[in-house]
Each structure stands twice: as C-alpha cells, then as structure tokens.
C-alpha cells in the first residue's frame, strides 16, 4: 500500500473530520513512522483545514513527530521517582552502547533515545516507552538485551513478554476497589431512580471531583444538565479525563486496567443525569497499551446491552468512544483537554464560558476524573446516605493514593478521606524505623511538599486536597534536586500560550540549573521568589500558577539544600566569565594579565 493509500484509509475511517485530527495524526504516524510535510498537506486538504492549523497540532504534542525519529524510539520516563531508581545511569549506558547522544537519531535512522515526562509507572520504574509501549523495571541487564534486540531489528512485538508486564500493585482496598458490584448493577439502579433522583443522590452524597480541585460533582452535572445545547447539532457530552499526567500519579491506570467497567458505568450514569448520548474517554498517550483492552471491554458492554440504544430495555441511549492523547501534560486541564478532543493544540480556553455550557464542540459538557465517575457507581448502587457515611464531613467517600518513592511497598492505597499522612507512611513501609522519611510530595509537582512535622495532617479537602500522587523521600534524598526535576518538568510542559508561564518556567529552570552548577547567589533565590509571585498572579491557567509551588515549598522547608550550593554572597554570572575571552585570546595569541578576568569582583587584581 502506498503512503497515500495508507493516509486515505485512515482519513476514511475518521470521515475526514478535522475534529478527529488527533486520532488521524496518531494512526497515520503509527503506520508511516512520522508526519512528513507532504503527509500533513494531504491531511489538511482532506479535512479542509488550513495547513497551518494541522501543523500547529502536529507540532504541539510530544508524541507527534514532524521529522523522522528512528524505527525504534526509546523514551525514558524522567520523573523524580525514576531518577531515584537510577534511570539517568541506565539511559547513559544505553546511549553509550548504541553510540548515541540523547535526543539524536542514529545515523542509520535506526534508533533514538530520549527522556519523557512521567509515564505513570512510578511504582515499578525505572520505566521506558519503546515505540510507545511501556516497559517497566529497567535494569542494566535489560538495557544490554534491549540494545541487542534493537541492533538485530527484532520487532518490539517479539520482545520478551514479561518486560511489558504492568502490575496493579493494589495494597489497600476500601469501598471503591472492593465494590462487589457486577457489571450493569449500578447503571440499573440509576435507571430505576431516573435522572433527577440520581442527580439528587449525587448531591446528597456530596461527591467531589477526584482530580484534585474538589469541585462538587452534583453541581457540575446539574449545570450541564440545565444548559441547553445550541447550533445545528445540539447535544450534551460526558468526558472522562484519563489524561493522568501529574508526575507520581497512576491510580487511573489501575482503574482502567482492572475496573474499566466501573468507569464506563460511571460515564453512563453521568450521561443519564446530564442527558448525553455520547461519552468520550480521553486516554493519555502514555497509556496507549490500554486501548485494545478498553475497546474490547466496551464491545462486551455493548453486547450485554449496557451501551448503545435501549440500554437495559429502557429508552436510554449512550455510547462511549476513546480518544488518545499524545503526550501533553496540559491536556489534564479540562478546557485544554476539550481543545485536544477537537483536534487542536491543548491550550486552556478562557473561562467563562465554562465547559458545562460551552464545552466539546461548543456544547454542554461535563468533564470528570476517572475516579469520580467510578465513585458515582457506588452512590447509584448503595445510595447517598451509605456513601456519605465514609470519609469526612466535607470529603465523603474514599481516595486512591498512588504511593511511590522510598518505601517498601509502593502501589495503590485506598483510604477513607481523613487519613493522616503518617498512617499512609506506616502502611507503605516508610514509617518510623523503616525509612528515615524526610518529606512527602503530595499531588505531584504542583502540589505540596510536606516535612516530618506535618505528617499528622490529613488527606481531605479540609486539609490536603490531592489528585492522588504520594511520593516519599528518605533522608538520603536531596530535596533541591527534587525541586529541580520538577522545574524542568514544568518548563517542558508549559503550553507556550501565555508569556508569564512560557518565559517564567524557563527562567526558573535556568536559575535552578545555575544554582546546581554552583554559580548561584542569594540574588538568584530572591529572583525565584519574585518569579513565583509573578507566575502565580499572571499566568493564564493552573500550570503557570502552580509551577513554582515545589520551589517555594522546598525553599521554605529545605533552604539549606539550596544555600550550601551558593557560590558566594556576591552576584555570580551563570557562565565562566574568563572563558568568555577564550576565542579572542586564541585569535590574538595574548595571554597577559589583561587577557584574563580575575575570579572575583575586587578591583585590585585588575589594576
């Protein structure tokens, strides 16, 4: 099949519809290896979009390639937890064995090796993606074998199966993970109640969003239900946000692996309440490997009469479609996610209007976290009164925590809301006497850094809200390096739309590198505080607002980790000043005193 035929087949499958551009680009790339200028031109013509728009989308996402990147593409997950498990050395040895520089394609076009943001395998790292398939638990031995397989051009599908094993690592179950429901039970109960009573139950249960912000789910569904669809094709939509990009979070991966029915059922219940016929699951590109199992779970539900027309013999009609992302953290923000669903770069929209009135295709849309939707099944099946008995006053129910880092048993822990940080540490094997835990980063880089003095604080919206990441750092860890890793993450993931964030995240990253390279001074620390204030106040969305949180927290709580790196009390350039005269010295052949800078300020040496 020629390239044009391949592209045509993909385009036909998606009805040449521009809003499906993400899926068109992904499927085309999967078959052709990369998105050449000619390919983009064909696609732009077919969907009748300006070519610049198509290229804009292709350029925006990390997992789309507008230049060839080798037949094997190895991406090392670069979360701090992967670093702690030694990914830097492993990647270096892989590059050495392949005679490669990170980020460069080998001369024969065979392979490229690079880093990527957290791939959600923090409890079983160091992890890599090879041609977008995850491989966990990398070891020096695996690196060696992998290099051999790449050199012999063995297809990834024929690599040892056990490498691709992704474990759930469920360590503690509570009401959600121990739900005991059979497929269809919760949906049947919801249909029995009817949309209005179901909504009333959700509100009475005081269910709040599990993505971290904790917005009332009932309120959101009600607003969406009450909003009217507009234009030629009025409709309501349910979107499940499975773009689990916050480094250190992997609970949605587990829910979608082993509790997919519960998630789909939650989406259906949401559909019933808001009056939607269509649900969209936005799956992060890193979880591509879940696409086939999820599609077959959907097929099973269709066969069982739980999706499609006349669900469970009623007039309720609802179906679900899966959209894959392509490696952009920002798409976890709901309006950026909707932009992405529509085939555009994931840039947060200006709000209001909110998605509940003007969301996907400008129609009323409710965007909910995977865990929130799953939890709604419990309320449908057991009632609001039962549900609200769990957790705390303002945070009912339970929360899944993704525990990783320095502990004996990393994995998924489900607790009723209100659990103390200390309790979680005890249970995961990082408690007193087990590991000298010095800090816990809650809810990922944009969350909170807690020190031992704060371990009695509680996981609940009343105290510490969280999307679920729980990264443990023992005494041997350098909290400055933790914050620097996060600074690099945000500089990489800023969408570039607003200046405070685009420039600010890069300035912060450069200052952190300057301090790490021992060129820092107290002025640089002042500058970090200034940038924190500016970005928090002036950024377009939450990414920029919270990008300095880890720096601010660690500067306040682990200041010595910064200060012992400072060069002097005087301001220091970020570069070697004397080396800045090197070329002129070489060209003039001079090496006299005036052809050098003294290392430090005072005039005496210069006179």
């Amino acid at each position, binding site marked *: 099949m020629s390239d044009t035929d391949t592209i045509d087949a993909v385009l036909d499958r998606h009805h040449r519809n521009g809003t499906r551009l993400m899926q068109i680009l992904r499927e085309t790339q999967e078959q052709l290896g990369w998105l050449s200028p000619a390919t983009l031109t064909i696609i732009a013509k077919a969907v009748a979009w300006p070519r610049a728009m198509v290229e804009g989308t292709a350029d925006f996402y990390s997992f789309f390639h507008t230049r060839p990147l080798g037949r094997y593409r190895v991406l090392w997950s670069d979360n701090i937890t992967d670093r702690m498990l030694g990914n830097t050395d492993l990647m270096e040895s892989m590059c050495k064995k392949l005679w490669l520089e990170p980020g460069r394609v080998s001369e024969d076009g065979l392979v490229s090796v690079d880093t990527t943001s957290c791939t959600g395998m923090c409890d079983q790292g160091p992890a890599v993606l090879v041609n977008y398939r995850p491989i966990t638990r990398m070891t020096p031995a695996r690196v060696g074998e992998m290099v051999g397989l790449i050199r012999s051009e063995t297809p990834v599908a024929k690599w040892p199966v056990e490498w691709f094993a992704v474990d759930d690592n469920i360590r503690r179950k509570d009401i959600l993970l121990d739900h005991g429901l059979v497929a269809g039970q919760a949906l049947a109960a919801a249909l029995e109640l009817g949309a209005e009573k179901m909504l009333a139950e959700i509100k009475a249960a005081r269910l709040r969003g599990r993505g971290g912000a904790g917005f009332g789910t009932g309120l959101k569904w009600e607003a969406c239900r009450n909003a009217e669809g507009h234009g030629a094709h009025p409709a309501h939509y349910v979107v499940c946000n499975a773009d689990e990009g916050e480094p250190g979070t992997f609970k949605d991966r587990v829910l979608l692996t082993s509790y997919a029915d519960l998630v789909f059922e939650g989406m259906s219940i949401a559909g019933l309440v808001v009056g939607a016929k269509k649900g969209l699951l936005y799956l992060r590109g890193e979880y591509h490997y879940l696409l086939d199992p999820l599609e077959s779970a959907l097929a099973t539900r269709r066969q069982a009469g739980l999706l499609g027309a006349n669900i469970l013999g009623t007039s309720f009609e609802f179906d679900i479609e899966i959209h894959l992302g392509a490696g952009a953290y920002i798409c976890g923000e709901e309006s950026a996610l909707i932009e992405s669903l529509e085939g555009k770069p994931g840039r947060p929209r200006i709000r209001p209007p909110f998605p509940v009135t003007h969301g996907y295709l400008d129609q009323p849309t409710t965007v909910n976290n995977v865990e929130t939707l799953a939890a709604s099944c419990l309320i449908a099946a057991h009632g609001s009164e039962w549900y609200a008995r769990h957790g705390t006053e303002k945070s009912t129910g339970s929360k899944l925590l993704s525990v990783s880092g320095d502990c004996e048993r990393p994995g998924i822990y489900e607790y009723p809301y209100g659990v103390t940080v200390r309790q979680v540490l005890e249970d995961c094997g990082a408690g007193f006497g087990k590991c000298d835990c010095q800090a816990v980063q809650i809810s990922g880089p944009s969350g909170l850094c807690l020190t031992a003095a704060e371990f009695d604080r509680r996981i609940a919206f009343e105290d510490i809200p969280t999307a679920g990441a729980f990264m443990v750092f023992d005494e041997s860890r350098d909290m400055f390096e933790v914050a620097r890793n996060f600074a690099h993450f945000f500089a990489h993931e800023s969408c570039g739309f607003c200046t405070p964030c685009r420039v600010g995240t890069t300035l912060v990253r450069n200052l952190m590198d300057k301090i790490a390279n021992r060129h820092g*001074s107290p*002025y640089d620390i002042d500058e970090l505080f200034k940038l924190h204030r500016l970005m928090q106040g002036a950024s377009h969305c939450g990414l920029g607002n919270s990008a300095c949180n880890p720096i601010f927290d660690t500067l306040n709580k682990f200041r010595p980790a910064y200060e012992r790196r400072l060069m002097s009390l*005087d*301001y220091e*350039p*970020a*570069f070697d*000043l004397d*080396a*800045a*005269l*090197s*070329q*002129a*010295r*070489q*060209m*003039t*052949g*001079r090496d*006299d005193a*005036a*052809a050098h*800078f003294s290392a430090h*300020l*005072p*005039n005496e040496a*210069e006179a």
Partner: protein
Amino acid sequence: MNAPMNVTTNANPAPAKKLRVATASLAGCFGCHMSILDIDERLLTLLDLIEFDRTPLTDIKRCGPCDLGIIEGGLCNAENVHVLREFRQNCKILVALGACAINGGLPAQRNHLDLRDVLEEVYQTEYLVSHGGIPNDPELPLPLNKVHPIHEVVKVDYFLPGCPPPADAIWKFLTDLLAGRTPALGHGLLHYD
C-alpha cells in the same frame, strides 16, 4: 510632561546630602545618554538634588562611592566588564538603562556568529581593508565570545527599557527614587522600542 515637574521639596525638607550619581556607556551608542540630556531644563532642577561622579559629563575616570549608577550598553569586551564591576562595587543602586544594557541590543547581533570568524573577516580577509592582522596590543581590551546584557554578570536593581528610554521615563525614575518611592514607569513611559 512638558512643564518642569515640581520636585523641590517644599513639603518635605530637602535631603541634607545630594544623591551621588555615576553613569557610563558600555557597548552602546550614547543614545541613552542623549536621552538623559533630553530632560532639558529639568536638568537644572535635578542638579540641585544630585551630583555627578564618574560620567561622560564630568570626565572623572574612576567611579567613587555613589548612591546610584546608571549603565547604558551591554558587555562586548573585557573593559566593559571591568567598568561594570567597578560600578557595582561602588553604587548602592545599579540601573540598566536602555535596550542594549537590558538585552544586549544591536551589538548582540554578532552573537550568532563565531567571534573567530568575525575577527578573521574584519582583519584578514575582507576586501578593501589593510589586512594588518588581528590587533593584539595588550592595551586593547579583548572582545568577549558573546555580547552579554549586564544583568548576566552583576546584580542589577532596576531596568529602564526603551531604545532609548524616553527622557520623561528617566525623569520619572529619578524623581521617584529621590522621593523614596519604588520607581514605576506606568503606561506610556514603559516601552521597548
């Protein structure tokens, strides 16, 4: 801002000591200094409040202890760095005046070229020049590999953008400083062209 602004300190008693100010033009075109002169007759008001140390106006060669240092231009050679360091050591407040001091400006256009190629082209290969070789007299300051804005080498307290910054912006900045207010340029005075 055409009429001289009244900064005579009738309401507040005049400061006992005049503000001591030094200025220098490094890799710049003196345009920013021209803009300082452009504050016109207000200069006379200003002279009641400040006195000049090292500046092209006084021809004092070395900078002594000062309250305020104003730097025009970026850093393109070793001498620029020495002057800048001298200012930073002696001035309580250091200001980057204009596009070149803040971003490198026009001189930084050579930054995408390798300095070695530049020197070779200018002194050895270019048509119609004397080809006398690359000057290597120790009296001459060596050029830096790249042109740098001044904040990359010393701590800078304030930045006055513009090419050049308008005279009114300089006036506003100085009068704010004299009155003890944190300088704020505001709309109309803050621009980058």
